[in-house]
Protein backbone atom coordinates (compact mmCIF):
# COMPACT_ATOMS: atom_id res chain seq x y z
CA UNK A 1 0.00 0.00 0.00
CA UNK A 2 2.71 2.42 1.01
CA UNK A 3 4.75 1.57 -2.05
CA UNK A 4 1.75 2.16 -4.26
CA UNK A 5 1.10 5.52 -2.68
CA UNK A 6 4.65 6.63 -3.34
CA UNK A 7 4.52 5.51 -6.95
CA UNK A 8 1.13 7.18 -7.35
CA UNK A 9 2.61 10.55 -6.44
CA UNK A 10 5.44 10.19 -8.94
CA UNK A 11 7.05 13.60 -8.73
CA UNK A 12 9.00 14.88 -11.72
CA UNK A 13 12.69 14.15 -11.34
CA UNK A 14 15.28 16.90 -11.39
CA UNK A 15 16.61 15.70 -14.74
CA UNK A 16 13.25 15.89 -16.51
CA UNK A 17 12.58 19.28 -14.97
CA UNK A 18 15.85 20.51 -16.46
CA UNK A 19 14.87 19.17 -19.85
CA UNK A 20 11.44 20.81 -19.66
CA UNK A 21 13.03 24.14 -18.71
CA UNK A 22 15.50 23.84 -21.55
CA UNK A 23 12.74 23.18 -24.06
CA UNK A 24 10.61 26.00 -22.70
CA UNK A 25 13.56 28.35 -23.11
CA UNK A 26 14.13 27.10 -26.65
CA UNK A 27 10.48 27.57 -27.61
CA UNK A 28 10.25 31.05 -26.09
CA UNK A 29 13.36 32.10 -28.01
CA UNK A 30 11.95 30.55 -31.16
CA UNK A 31 8.70 32.46 -30.72
CA UNK A 32 10.70 35.63 -30.14
CA UNK A 33 12.76 35.09 -33.30
CA UNK A 34 9.59 34.37 -35.27
CA UNK A 35 8.04 37.62 -33.98
CA UNK A 36 11.12 39.65 -34.89
CA UNK A 37 10.99 38.06 -38.32
CA UNK A 38 7.32 38.91 -38.75
CA UNK A 39 7.87 42.59 -37.99
CA UNK A 40 10.86 42.62 -40.32
CA UNK A 41 13.53 43.05 -37.68
CA UNK A 42 15.28 39.83 -38.74
CA UNK A 43 15.78 39.18 -42.42
CA UNK A 44 13.29 36.60 -43.77
CA UNK A 45 16.23 34.85 -45.39
CA UNK A 46 17.68 33.94 -41.99
CA UNK A 47 14.32 32.76 -40.72
CA UNK A 48 14.05 30.59 -43.82
CA UNK A 49 17.47 29.03 -43.16
CA UNK A 50 16.55 28.32 -39.54
CA UNK A 51 13.27 26.71 -40.61
CA UNK A 52 14.98 24.45 -43.12
CA UNK A 53 17.57 23.53 -40.51
CA UNK A 54 14.83 22.58 -38.06
CA UNK A 55 13.13 20.27 -40.55
CA UNK A 56 16.44 18.72 -41.54
CA UNK A 57 17.36 18.08 -37.91
CA UNK A 58 14.12 16.10 -37.50
CA UNK A 59 15.00 14.06 -40.59
CA UNK A 60 18.61 13.46 -39.60
CA UNK A 61 17.91 12.64 -35.96
CA UNK A 62 15.25 10.12 -36.91
CA UNK A 63 17.53 8.44 -39.44
CA UNK A 64 20.14 8.36 -36.70
CA UNK A 65 17.90 5.93 -34.84
CA UNK A 66 18.44 3.44 -37.66
CA UNK A 67 21.91 4.15 -38.97
CA UNK A 68 23.42 5.20 -35.67
CA UNK A 69 21.77 3.39 -32.79
CA UNK A 70 20.43 0.29 -34.48
CA UNK A 71 23.45 0.11 -36.80
CA UNK A 72 21.50 -0.82 -39.92
CA UNK A 73 22.27 1.11 -43.07
CA UNK A 74 18.90 2.32 -44.35
CA UNK A 75 18.84 4.28 -47.60
CA UNK A 76 15.20 5.20 -48.06
CA UNK A 77 14.51 7.99 -45.61
CA UNK A 78 13.44 10.58 -48.21
CA UNK A 79 10.77 8.14 -49.40
CA UNK A 80 9.05 8.26 -46.02
CA UNK A 81 9.44 12.03 -45.98
CA UNK A 82 7.64 12.01 -49.35
CA UNK A 83 4.80 9.84 -48.05
CA UNK A 84 4.43 12.22 -45.11
CA UNK A 85 4.56 15.28 -47.35
CA UNK A 86 1.85 14.00 -49.69
CA UNK A 87 -0.46 12.60 -47.04
CA UNK A 88 -0.05 15.73 -44.91
CA UNK A 89 -0.73 17.94 -47.92
CA UNK A 90 -3.84 15.99 -48.90
CA UNK A 91 -5.22 16.20 -45.37
CA UNK A 92 -4.54 19.94 -45.30
CA UNK A 93 -6.15 20.58 -48.71
CA UNK A 94 -9.20 18.32 -48.65
CA UNK A 95 -10.42 18.14 -45.06
CA UNK A 96 -11.24 21.86 -44.98
CA UNK A 97 -10.43 22.35 -41.33
CA UNK A 98 -9.63 25.63 -39.56
CA UNK A 99 -5.96 26.46 -38.96
CA UNK A 100 -5.02 24.63 -35.75
CA UNK A 101 -6.92 21.38 -36.25
CA UNK A 102 -5.70 21.34 -39.85
CA UNK A 103 -2.10 21.72 -38.75
CA UNK A 104 -2.47 19.08 -36.05
CA UNK A 105 -4.21 16.50 -38.20
CA UNK A 106 -1.96 17.00 -41.20
CA UNK A 107 1.15 16.53 -39.05
CA UNK A 108 -0.18 13.62 -36.99
CA UNK A 109 -1.78 12.00 -40.02
CA UNK A 110 1.43 12.23 -42.02
CA UNK A 111 3.41 10.64 -39.20
CA UNK A 112 0.88 7.82 -38.84
CA UNK A 113 0.67 7.09 -42.58
CA UNK A 114 4.48 7.02 -42.93
CA UNK A 115 4.75 4.84 -39.86
CA UNK A 116 2.20 2.32 -41.11
CA UNK A 117 3.82 2.11 -44.55
CA UNK A 118 7.25 1.68 -42.92
CA UNK A 119 5.92 -1.04 -40.64
CA UNK A 120 4.62 -3.03 -43.59
CA UNK A 121 7.83 -2.49 -45.56
CA UNK A 122 9.83 -3.42 -42.47
CA UNK A 123 8.08 -6.79 -42.25
CA UNK A 124 9.73 -7.64 -45.57
CA UNK A 125 12.93 -5.63 -45.20
CA UNK A 126 14.24 -6.92 -41.90
CA UNK A 127 14.50 -10.45 -43.12
CA UNK A 128 17.79 -9.13 -44.51
CA UNK A 129 20.73 -7.30 -42.98
CA UNK A 130 23.68 -5.20 -44.08
CA UNK A 131 24.15 -4.49 -47.78
CA UNK A 132 20.92 -6.23 -48.70
CA UNK A 133 18.96 -4.03 -46.34
CA UNK A 134 20.58 -0.92 -47.86
CA UNK A 135 19.64 -2.04 -51.37
CA UNK A 136 16.08 -2.96 -50.39
CA UNK A 137 15.43 0.35 -48.64
CA UNK A 138 16.89 2.21 -51.62
CA UNK A 139 14.55 0.18 -53.85
CA UNK A 140 11.54 1.15 -51.76
CA UNK A 141 12.60 4.81 -51.94
CA UNK A 142 12.49 4.58 -55.75
CA UNK A 143 9.18 2.67 -55.71
CA UNK A 144 7.55 5.30 -53.50
CA UNK A 145 8.70 8.15 -55.74
CA UNK A 146 7.58 6.30 -58.86
CA UNK A 147 4.17 5.51 -57.43
CA UNK A 148 3.60 9.15 -56.52
CA UNK A 149 4.73 10.20 -59.99
CA UNK A 150 2.09 8.02 -61.54
CA UNK A 151 -0.89 9.10 -59.47
CA UNK A 152 -2.65 11.83 -61.43
CA UNK A 153 -4.82 12.78 -58.48
CA UNK A 154 -1.79 14.27 -56.69
CA UNK A 155 -0.42 15.93 -59.81
CA UNK A 156 1.92 13.18 -60.95
CA UNK A 157 5.36 14.42 -61.95
CA UNK A 158 4.13 18.05 -62.07
CA UNK A 159 3.69 18.03 -58.33
CA UNK A 160 0.97 19.10 -55.94
CA UNK A 161 0.10 22.78 -55.64
CA UNK A 162 -2.24 24.84 -53.53
CA UNK A 163 -1.23 23.53 -50.12
CA UNK A 164 -2.24 26.05 -47.46
CA UNK A 165 0.74 27.57 -45.67
CA UNK A 166 0.61 26.52 -42.04
CA UNK A 167 4.24 25.97 -41.16
CA UNK A 168 6.56 28.69 -39.97
CA UNK A 169 9.75 28.67 -37.95
CA UNK A 170 7.92 28.50 -34.64
CA UNK A 171 5.83 25.48 -35.64
CA UNK A 172 8.99 23.70 -36.79
CA UNK A 173 10.63 24.54 -33.47
CA UNK A 174 7.69 23.01 -31.58
CA UNK A 175 7.93 19.82 -33.66
CA UNK A 176 11.70 19.73 -33.22
CA UNK A 177 11.36 19.99 -29.46
CA UNK A 178 8.76 17.21 -29.50
CA UNK A 179 10.99 15.03 -31.70
CA UNK A 180 14.00 15.44 -29.46
CA UNK A 181 12.00 14.76 -26.32
CA UNK A 182 10.72 11.49 -27.77
CA UNK A 183 14.04 10.43 -29.30
CA UNK A 184 16.08 11.27 -26.22
CA UNK A 185 13.75 9.34 -23.95
CA UNK A 186 13.77 6.39 -26.34
CA UNK A 187 17.52 6.31 -26.77
CA UNK A 188 18.15 6.34 -23.04
CA UNK A 189 15.41 3.81 -22.28
CA UNK A 190 15.74 0.05 -22.36
CA UNK A 191 14.65 0.14 -26.01
CA UNK A 192 17.54 2.42 -26.92
CA UNK A 193 20.00 0.19 -25.10
CA UNK A 194 18.53 -2.79 -26.84
CA UNK A 195 19.06 -1.16 -30.25
CA UNK A 196 22.67 -0.47 -29.30
CA UNK A 197 23.04 -4.09 -28.18
CA UNK A 198 21.71 -5.26 -31.56
CA UNK A 199 24.30 -3.05 -33.24
CA UNK A 200 27.12 -4.42 -31.13
CA UNK A 201 26.27 -8.10 -31.03
CA UNK A 202 23.19 -9.32 -32.81
CA UNK A 203 23.48 -12.94 -31.67
CA UNK A 204 24.07 -12.05 -28.06
CA UNK A 205 21.00 -9.83 -27.97
CA UNK A 206 18.91 -12.55 -29.58
CA UNK A 207 20.20 -14.93 -26.89
CA UNK A 208 18.73 -12.58 -24.27
CA UNK A 209 15.31 -13.53 -25.55
CA UNK A 210 14.60 -10.51 -27.71
CA UNK A 211 12.57 -10.71 -30.90
CA UNK A 212 15.19 -8.94 -33.00
CA UNK A 213 13.10 -8.46 -36.13
CA UNK A 214 10.26 -6.89 -34.19
CA UNK A 215 12.61 -4.53 -32.37
CA UNK A 216 14.31 -3.48 -35.60
CA UNK A 217 10.95 -2.85 -37.19
CA UNK A 218 9.93 -0.75 -34.20
CA UNK A 219 12.94 1.54 -34.73
CA UNK A 220 12.22 1.64 -38.46
CA UNK A 221 8.58 2.60 -37.88
CA UNK A 222 9.43 5.33 -35.39
CA UNK A 223 12.14 6.77 -37.64
CA UNK A 224 9.78 6.80 -40.62
CA UNK A 225 7.03 8.50 -38.59
CA UNK A 226 9.33 11.39 -37.81
CA UNK A 227 10.44 11.54 -41.43
CA UNK A 228 6.74 11.79 -42.33
CA UNK A 229 6.29 14.58 -39.80
CA UNK A 230 9.19 16.48 -41.36
CA UNK A 231 7.73 15.88 -44.81
CA UNK A 232 4.38 17.26 -43.77
CA UNK A 233 6.06 20.33 -42.28
CA UNK A 234 7.99 20.76 -45.51
CA UNK A 235 4.87 20.51 -47.69
CA UNK A 236 3.00 23.11 -45.67
CA UNK A 237 6.00 25.39 -45.66
CA UNK A 238 6.80 25.25 -49.39
CA UNK A 239 3.10 25.04 -50.40
CA UNK A 240 4.30 23.06 -53.41
CA UNK A 241 5.77 19.59 -53.57
CA UNK A 242 6.86 17.35 -56.39
CA UNK A 243 7.98 13.74 -56.26
CA UNK A 244 11.48 14.51 -57.50
CA UNK A 245 12.38 16.26 -54.26
CA UNK A 246 11.98 12.98 -52.32
CA UNK A 247 14.22 10.73 -54.39
CA UNK A 248 17.58 9.32 -53.40
CA UNK A 249 19.26 12.74 -53.84
CA UNK A 250 17.42 13.90 -50.73
CA UNK A 251 18.29 10.65 -48.96
CA UNK A 252 21.94 11.27 -49.76
CA UNK A 253 21.73 14.80 -48.41
CA UNK A 254 20.27 13.47 -45.14
CA UNK A 255 23.04 10.86 -44.98
CA UNK A 256 25.75 13.48 -45.56
CA UNK A 257 24.43 15.58 -42.68
CA UNK A 258 24.10 12.50 -40.45
CA UNK A 259 27.64 11.27 -41.07
CA UNK A 260 29.05 14.79 -40.85
CA UNK A 261 27.60 15.14 -37.35
CA UNK A 262 28.32 11.61 -36.22
CA UNK A 263 26.11 8.53 -36.03
CA UNK A 264 24.86 7.35 -32.69
CA UNK A 265 24.82 10.86 -31.24
CA UNK A 266 21.75 13.09 -30.99
CA UNK A 267 24.02 16.11 -30.56
CA UNK A 268 25.80 15.12 -33.75
CA UNK A 269 22.55 15.28 -35.70
CA UNK A 270 22.06 18.92 -34.68
CA UNK A 271 25.68 19.85 -35.32
CA UNK A 272 25.82 18.06 -38.67
CA UNK A 273 22.75 19.85 -40.02
CA UNK A 274 23.86 23.26 -38.75
CA UNK A 275 27.40 22.96 -40.12
CA UNK A 276 26.25 21.55 -43.45
CA UNK A 277 23.51 24.12 -43.99
CA UNK A 278 25.72 27.06 -43.05
CA UNK A 279 28.54 25.78 -45.28
CA UNK A 280 26.19 25.43 -48.22
CA UNK A 281 24.71 28.90 -47.69
CA UNK A 282 28.15 30.53 -47.36
CA UNK A 283 29.22 28.78 -50.54
CA UNK A 284 26.10 30.02 -52.28
CA UNK A 285 26.90 33.59 -51.30
CA UNK A 286 30.58 33.26 -52.17
CA UNK A 287 29.87 31.88 -55.59
CA UNK A 288 26.99 34.21 -56.32
CA UNK A 289 28.98 36.51 -58.60
CA UNK A 290 28.95 33.84 -61.23
CA UNK A 291 25.68 31.87 -61.57
CA UNK A 292 27.51 29.02 -63.24
CA UNK A 293 29.68 28.54 -60.19
CA UNK A 294 26.67 28.19 -57.85
CA UNK A 295 26.08 24.73 -59.25
CA UNK A 296 29.50 23.77 -57.93
CA UNK A 297 27.85 23.46 -54.50
CA UNK A 298 26.36 20.20 -55.64
CA UNK A 299 29.86 18.90 -56.24
CA UNK A 300 31.08 20.17 -52.93
CA UNK A 301 28.34 18.38 -50.94
CA UNK A 302 29.46 14.85 -51.84
CA UNK A 303 33.05 16.01 -51.50
CA UNK A 304 32.32 16.82 -47.86
CA UNK A 305 31.16 13.23 -47.34
CA UNK A 306 34.36 11.88 -48.87
CA UNK A 307 36.52 14.13 -46.73
CA UNK A 308 34.64 13.12 -43.55
CA UNK A 309 35.09 9.45 -44.33
CA UNK A 310 38.81 9.94 -44.91
CA UNK A 311 39.58 12.13 -41.93
CA UNK A 312 36.92 11.79 -39.24
CA UNK A 313 35.13 8.51 -39.73
CA UNK A 314 32.98 9.07 -36.68
CA UNK A 315 31.82 12.55 -37.66
CA UNK A 316 32.21 15.77 -35.75
CA UNK A 317 30.73 14.46 -32.50
CA UNK A 318 31.59 10.77 -32.74
CA UNK A 319 29.42 8.97 -30.21
CA UNK A 320 29.75 11.76 -27.66
CA UNK A 321 26.79 13.82 -26.50
CA UNK A 322 26.46 17.36 -25.26
CA UNK A 323 25.80 17.33 -21.58
CA UNK A 324 22.39 18.96 -21.78
CA UNK A 325 21.04 16.16 -23.96
CA UNK A 326 22.05 13.35 -21.61
CA UNK A 327 19.67 12.55 -18.82
CA UNK A 328 21.26 12.68 -15.39
CA UNK A 329 22.73 9.44 -14.14
CA UNK A 330 20.68 7.92 -11.39
CA UNK A 331 22.52 8.12 -8.13
CA UNK A 332 23.19 4.42 -7.72
Amino acid sequence: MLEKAIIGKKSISAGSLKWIRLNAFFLISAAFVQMLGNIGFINQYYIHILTVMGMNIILVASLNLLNGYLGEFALGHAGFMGIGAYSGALIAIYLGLPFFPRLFFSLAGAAIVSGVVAYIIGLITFKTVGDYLAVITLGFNMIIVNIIQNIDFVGGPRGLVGIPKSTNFFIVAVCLSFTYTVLRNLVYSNYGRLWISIRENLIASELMGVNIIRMKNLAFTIAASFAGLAGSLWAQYQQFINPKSFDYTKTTEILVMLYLGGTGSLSGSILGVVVYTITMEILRNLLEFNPRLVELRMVISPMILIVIMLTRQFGLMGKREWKWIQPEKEGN
Partner: protein
Amino acid sequence: MSLLELNNLTVSYGPIKALHGITIRVEEGELVSLLGANGAGKSTTLRSISRLIPILEGDILFNGKSILNLTAYQIVSLGISHVPEGRGIFPSLTVMENLELSSWTVKDKKKIKHNLSRIFSIFPRLEERKNQLAGTLSGGEQQMLAVGRAMMTDCRLMLLDEPSMGLSPLLVKEVFKVLKEINNSGTTILLVEQNANMALKIADRGYVIENGRIALEGPAEHLMQDKRVKEAYFGKEKK
Protein backbone atom coordinates in the same frame (compact mmCIF):
# COMPACT_ATOMS: atom_id res chain seq x y z
CA MET B 1 12.72 -37.39 -17.49
CA SER B 2 15.87 -35.52 -18.33
CA LEU B 3 15.92 -31.74 -18.42
CA LEU B 4 17.58 -31.74 -21.83
CA GLU B 5 17.67 -34.54 -24.36
CA LEU B 6 19.34 -34.47 -27.74
CA ASN B 7 18.20 -37.45 -29.79
CA ASN B 8 20.18 -38.43 -32.85
CA LEU B 9 20.87 -34.78 -33.68
CA THR B 10 22.22 -34.15 -37.18
CA VAL B 11 23.30 -30.71 -38.33
CA SER B 12 24.99 -29.64 -41.53
CA TYR B 13 26.50 -26.44 -42.83
CA GLY B 14 25.63 -26.65 -46.50
CA PRO B 15 26.88 -29.98 -47.82
CA ILE B 16 29.23 -30.53 -44.87
CA LYS B 17 27.82 -32.45 -41.95
CA ALA B 18 28.92 -31.02 -38.63
CA LEU B 19 27.04 -33.42 -36.36
CA HIS B 20 26.32 -37.03 -37.30
CA GLY B 21 23.48 -37.96 -35.02
CA ILE B 22 24.63 -37.25 -31.46
CA THR B 23 22.64 -38.21 -28.40
CA ILE B 24 23.17 -36.33 -25.16
CA ARG B 25 21.21 -36.29 -21.91
CA VAL B 26 21.44 -33.70 -19.18
CA GLU B 27 19.60 -34.31 -15.91
CA GLU B 28 18.25 -31.53 -13.74
CA GLY B 29 20.92 -30.14 -11.41
CA GLU B 30 23.84 -31.73 -13.22
CA LEU B 31 26.99 -30.12 -14.55
CA VAL B 32 27.85 -31.84 -17.81
CA SER B 33 31.00 -31.16 -19.80
CA LEU B 34 31.22 -31.52 -23.55
CA LEU B 35 34.82 -31.99 -24.59
CA GLY B 36 36.46 -32.11 -27.95
CA ALA B 37 39.09 -30.67 -30.22
CA ASN B 38 38.67 -27.67 -32.52
CA GLY B 39 35.97 -28.24 -35.09
CA ALA B 40 34.61 -31.35 -33.41
CA GLY B 41 31.12 -29.87 -33.23
CA LYS B 42 30.91 -28.63 -29.65
CA SER B 43 29.78 -25.10 -30.41
CA THR B 44 27.50 -26.40 -33.13
CA THR B 45 25.75 -28.53 -30.52
CA LEU B 46 25.14 -25.50 -28.31
CA ARG B 47 24.02 -23.37 -31.23
CA SER B 48 21.53 -25.97 -32.31
CA ILE B 49 20.11 -26.19 -28.79
CA SER B 50 19.53 -22.43 -28.71
CA ARG B 51 18.08 -22.69 -32.22
CA LEU B 52 20.59 -20.39 -33.90
CA ILE B 53 21.13 -22.90 -36.69
CA PRO B 54 18.71 -25.18 -38.53
CA ILE B 55 18.58 -28.87 -37.70
CA LEU B 56 18.61 -31.56 -40.34
CA GLU B 57 17.45 -34.55 -38.34
CA GLY B 58 16.81 -35.62 -34.80
CA ASP B 59 15.03 -33.94 -31.94
CA ILE B 60 15.78 -31.68 -28.98
CA LEU B 61 13.61 -32.10 -25.90
CA PHE B 62 13.65 -29.59 -23.08
CA ASN B 63 11.72 -30.67 -20.03
CA GLY B 64 10.12 -33.39 -22.12
CA LYS B 65 8.88 -31.08 -24.89
CA SER B 66 10.36 -30.66 -28.32
CA ILE B 67 11.82 -27.21 -28.97
CA LEU B 68 12.45 -27.78 -32.67
CA ASN B 69 9.78 -25.39 -33.90
CA LEU B 70 10.73 -22.53 -31.59
CA THR B 71 12.96 -19.59 -32.54
CA ALA B 72 16.06 -18.43 -30.72
CA TYR B 73 14.36 -15.70 -28.71
CA GLN B 74 11.54 -18.00 -27.56
CA ILE B 75 14.05 -20.47 -26.13
CA VAL B 76 15.17 -17.94 -23.53
CA SER B 77 11.79 -17.62 -21.89
CA LEU B 78 11.70 -21.42 -21.50
CA GLY B 79 14.72 -21.09 -19.22
CA ILE B 80 17.68 -21.86 -21.46
CA SER B 81 20.46 -19.31 -21.47
CA HIS B 82 23.41 -19.47 -23.83
CA VAL B 83 26.71 -17.69 -23.16
CA PRO B 84 28.18 -17.57 -26.64
CA GLU B 85 31.80 -18.04 -27.59
CA GLY B 86 33.71 -14.80 -27.17
CA ARG B 87 31.37 -13.72 -24.34
CA GLY B 88 29.03 -11.51 -26.40
CA ILE B 89 28.96 -8.52 -24.09
CA PHE B 90 27.96 -5.08 -25.33
CA PRO B 91 31.09 -2.91 -25.03
CA SER B 92 29.51 0.54 -25.24
CA LEU B 93 26.89 -0.15 -22.58
CA THR B 94 27.75 -0.06 -18.89
CA VAL B 95 28.00 -3.21 -16.78
CA MET B 96 24.68 -2.37 -15.15
CA GLU B 97 22.98 -1.76 -18.50
CA ASN B 98 24.33 -5.08 -19.78
CA LEU B 99 22.82 -6.86 -16.80
CA GLU B 100 19.52 -5.00 -16.87
CA LEU B 101 19.02 -5.66 -20.57
CA SER B 102 19.47 -9.37 -20.02
CA SER B 103 16.42 -9.49 -17.80
CA TRP B 104 14.32 -8.55 -20.84
CA THR B 105 12.24 -11.73 -20.59
CA VAL B 106 11.78 -11.51 -16.80
CA LYS B 107 8.70 -9.47 -15.94
CA ASP B 108 8.84 -9.80 -12.16
CA LYS B 109 10.70 -6.73 -10.80
CA LYS B 110 11.41 -8.39 -7.46
CA LYS B 111 13.01 -11.35 -9.17
CA ILE B 112 15.27 -9.03 -11.19
CA LYS B 113 16.39 -7.31 -8.01
CA HIS B 114 17.00 -10.64 -6.33
CA ASN B 115 19.01 -11.95 -9.27
CA LEU B 116 21.04 -8.76 -9.39
CA SER B 117 22.00 -8.94 -5.73
CA ARG B 118 22.86 -12.62 -6.15
CA ILE B 119 25.17 -11.81 -9.07
CA PHE B 120 26.84 -9.02 -7.14
CA SER B 121 27.43 -11.32 -4.18
CA ILE B 122 29.08 -13.89 -6.46
CA PHE B 123 31.00 -11.30 -8.49
CA PRO B 124 31.83 -8.36 -6.21
CA ARG B 125 34.07 -7.01 -8.98
CA LEU B 126 31.04 -6.37 -11.15
CA GLU B 127 29.38 -4.31 -8.44
CA GLU B 128 32.51 -2.19 -8.08
CA ARG B 129 32.48 -1.53 -11.80
CA LYS B 130 28.77 -1.35 -12.48
CA ASN B 131 28.87 2.13 -14.00
CA GLN B 132 31.89 1.38 -16.14
CA LEU B 133 31.57 0.62 -19.86
CA ALA B 134 31.70 -3.13 -20.39
CA GLY B 135 34.28 -2.72 -23.16
CA THR B 136 36.78 -1.38 -20.63
CA LEU B 137 36.64 -4.49 -18.44
CA SER B 138 39.45 -7.03 -18.42
CA GLY B 139 38.95 -10.41 -20.08
CA GLY B 140 38.13 -12.16 -16.81
CA GLU B 141 35.68 -9.49 -15.76
CA GLN B 142 34.01 -9.68 -19.17
CA GLN B 143 33.59 -13.42 -18.71
CA MET B 144 32.07 -12.81 -15.27
CA LEU B 145 29.71 -10.30 -16.86
CA ALA B 146 28.73 -12.84 -19.51
CA VAL B 147 27.92 -15.43 -16.85
CA GLY B 148 26.12 -12.78 -14.81
CA ARG B 149 24.02 -11.89 -17.81
CA ALA B 150 23.00 -15.51 -18.24
CA MET B 151 21.96 -15.57 -14.58
CA MET B 152 19.80 -12.47 -15.15
CA THR B 153 17.62 -14.38 -17.61
CA ASP B 154 16.49 -16.54 -14.70
CA CYS B 155 17.52 -19.72 -16.46
CA ARG B 156 17.19 -23.39 -15.48
CA LEU B 157 19.81 -24.51 -17.96
CA MET B 158 22.95 -22.55 -18.75
CA LEU B 159 24.91 -23.33 -21.91
CA LEU B 160 28.49 -22.11 -21.70
CA ASP B 161 30.75 -21.97 -24.73
CA GLU B 162 34.44 -22.07 -23.73
CA PRO B 163 34.40 -19.76 -20.71
CA SER B 164 38.13 -20.34 -20.27
CA MET B 165 39.03 -18.88 -23.64
CA GLY B 166 41.69 -16.19 -23.42
CA LEU B 167 41.90 -16.23 -19.63
CA SER B 168 44.98 -16.75 -17.47
CA PRO B 169 45.13 -20.09 -15.58
CA LEU B 170 44.39 -18.31 -12.32
CA LEU B 171 41.28 -16.64 -13.74
CA VAL B 172 40.13 -19.89 -15.32
CA LYS B 173 40.25 -21.46 -11.87
CA GLU B 174 38.20 -18.61 -10.45
CA VAL B 175 35.57 -18.74 -13.20
CA PHE B 176 35.21 -22.52 -12.85
CA LYS B 177 34.85 -22.24 -9.09
CA VAL B 178 31.99 -19.81 -9.62
CA LEU B 179 30.38 -22.10 -12.19
CA LYS B 180 30.40 -24.91 -9.65
CA GLU B 181 28.85 -22.56 -7.11
CA ILE B 182 26.07 -21.60 -9.53
CA ASN B 183 25.51 -25.27 -10.26
CA ASN B 184 25.33 -26.09 -6.58
CA SER B 185 22.61 -23.51 -6.12
CA GLY B 186 20.41 -25.40 -8.56
CA THR B 187 21.16 -24.26 -12.10
CA THR B 188 21.89 -27.05 -14.57
CA ILE B 189 24.98 -26.38 -16.68
CA LEU B 190 26.13 -27.76 -20.01
CA LEU B 191 29.74 -26.71 -20.43
CA VAL B 192 31.68 -26.81 -23.68
CA GLU B 193 35.42 -26.79 -23.10
CA GLN B 194 38.80 -27.49 -24.59
CA ASN B 195 40.40 -27.32 -21.18
CA ALA B 196 39.45 -30.92 -20.39
CA ASN B 197 41.32 -31.09 -17.13
CA MET B 198 39.49 -28.17 -15.53
CA ALA B 199 36.14 -29.05 -17.07
CA LEU B 200 36.18 -32.64 -15.78
CA LYS B 201 37.24 -31.54 -12.33
CA ILE B 202 34.00 -29.69 -11.71
CA ALA B 203 31.70 -31.81 -13.88
CA ASP B 204 29.43 -34.67 -12.83
CA ARG B 205 29.46 -36.32 -16.22
CA GLY B 206 31.17 -35.77 -19.53
CA TYR B 207 30.88 -36.42 -23.23
CA VAL B 208 33.79 -36.48 -25.65
CA ILE B 209 32.87 -35.47 -29.16
CA GLU B 210 35.03 -36.30 -32.16
CA ASN B 211 34.27 -35.29 -35.75
CA GLY B 212 30.61 -34.80 -34.98
CA ARG B 213 30.12 -38.09 -33.15
CA ILE B 214 30.04 -38.94 -29.47
CA ALA B 215 33.24 -40.90 -28.94
CA LEU B 216 33.05 -41.40 -25.19
CA GLU B 217 30.70 -40.69 -22.36
CA GLY B 218 30.55 -41.37 -18.66
CA PRO B 219 31.05 -39.99 -15.16
CA ALA B 220 33.74 -37.34 -14.97
CA GLU B 221 36.11 -39.40 -12.78
CA HIS B 222 35.99 -42.27 -15.28
CA LEU B 223 36.78 -39.99 -18.19
CA MET B 224 39.69 -38.46 -16.33
CA GLN B 225 41.18 -41.92 -15.92
CA ASP B 226 40.44 -42.98 -19.48
CA LYS B 227 43.55 -43.63 -21.53
CA ARG B 228 42.18 -42.12 -24.71
CA VAL B 229 41.10 -38.89 -23.02
CA LYS B 230 44.44 -38.66 -21.31
CA GLU B 231 46.30 -39.05 -24.56
CA ALA B 232 44.12 -36.67 -26.50
CA TYR B 233 43.83 -33.87 -23.98
CA PHE B 234 46.38 -34.13 -21.23
CA GLY B 235 49.37 -35.17 -23.33
CA LYS B 236 51.20 -38.41 -22.96
CA GLU B 237 52.69 -39.11 -19.59
CA LYS B 238 56.45 -38.97 -19.56
CA LYS B 239 58.21 -42.04 -18.37
